[in-house]
């Protein structure tokens, strides 16, 4: 939700919106008290609907990464604990065949909404760092050289951040199977395909355990 008091100009606009909102209610109530109540309910419902739905129907502006030096392939892997899964390692091997490949693993610092709002992200970042390091060790053991970064708690924002610094050719998102994946429920894969102008591969990794992290991946 946009803060109506973010700037003085926003607040000034809000004054006028308030005047218009109440002027219609008073006009309705002047005709009949119950008409005023109906106008109040309709206006409030319309306002709530507008606040909830605005921006959702707009086509997102697709973000593309900057160009990187020719002769190499760059893969961006976004995963949390599922980065250790054999399905993902096999997919990385398949993508890396034939050309030098650089791999960046981003582990989003998944956090609870309350902690996100109060900027208490130390624990989430520490947990993400530990998972990331375990993932890199597992990848190294499988013969894949990669570096890792802790990303934003929002996976899409984490991808956008990595696009700016890493310039990947492809994004690989690793999730749990449907039903156990919070990211699939939140349409992270579909959101990435809509938002970013580059191939997005979805790899389902069945670790056979239930996640206990805040984001559930």
């Amino acid at each position: 939700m946009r803060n109506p008091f973010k700037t003085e100009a926003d607040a000034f606009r809000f004054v006028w919106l308030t005047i218009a909102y109440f002027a219609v209610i008073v006009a309705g109530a002047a005709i009949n008290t119950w008409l005023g109540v109906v106008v109040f309910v309709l206006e409030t419902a319309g306002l709530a609907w507008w606040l909830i739905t605005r921006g959702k129907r707009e086509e997102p502006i697709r973000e593309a990464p900057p160009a990187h030096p020719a002769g190499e392939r760059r893969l961006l892997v976004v995963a949390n604990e599922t980065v250790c899964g054999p399905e993902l390692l096999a997919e990385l091997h398949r993508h890396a065949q034939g050309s030098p490949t650089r791999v960046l693993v981003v582990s989003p610092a998944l956090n609870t909404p309350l902690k996100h709002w109060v900027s208490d992200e130390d624990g989430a970042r520490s947990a993400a760092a530990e998972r990331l390091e375990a993932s890199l060790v597992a990848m190294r053991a499988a013969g894949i050289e990669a570096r890792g970064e802790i990303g934003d708690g929002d996976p899409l924002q984490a991808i956008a951040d990595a696009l700016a610094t890493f310039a990947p050719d492809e994004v690989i998102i690793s999730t749990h199977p449907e039903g156990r994946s919070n990211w699939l429920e939140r349409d992270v894969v579909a959101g990435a395909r809509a938002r970013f102008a580059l191939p997005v591969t979805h790899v389902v990794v069945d670790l056979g355990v239930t996640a206990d992290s805040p984001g559930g991946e």
Partner: protein
Amino acid sequence: MSAAAEAHGHAGGHGHGDANLHPPPIHYSSRINPLIVGIFLFIGSEIMLFGSFFTVYFFDRVVANPPHWPPISPEGIPYERPWFVALVNTCILVTSSFTMHWATTSIKRGNRAGLCAGMTLTFLLGLTFLLTQVIEYHRIGFNTSNTAFAATFFGLTGLHGFHVFVGLTILLAMTIRSFRGHFSPEHHHGIEVGGIYWHFVDVMWIVVYVTVYVL
């Protein structure tokens, strides 16, 4: 795999052993701005404060449901709400929002004279509003202890009046600082924040006026 070797330092720095010795670096891309959290908390607390007064008001009006509204006083005379004077006062306060916005726009454009004039007018209009309200309190003919209606009337308008008083104190400081040349097109955060508060006071008055005086 023919992957190019890259450093592992990014992840290595957050190891298991010393992970809690230093806080991890702050990541800003989608972090909630503390100022935004602060203003939401402020608005939330104000809504709860005014909301509690409005709850009492509507309880008296809807649940207690007296046969007449405004109710009849113990002396048998209907209470009179000075809606016309309050309407004039509303116009004064809305006009002060205009002058406040003019002052902010002026300093953004580097017009210091406009800033000083806008701030002075805003302060004077706000003072006029408050003084008019005080005079009305003396002339209104009932007091807080008369009925529940009288108590909630003074409670709501008085609570808003207190906000106007706080706003005037802020406006006075802003006006003095404006005349001393403390603000520039690049640095006028004090004007922005004070302006936001003043518009908030204006919005709250519109809600109070419509609820208490008109409906």
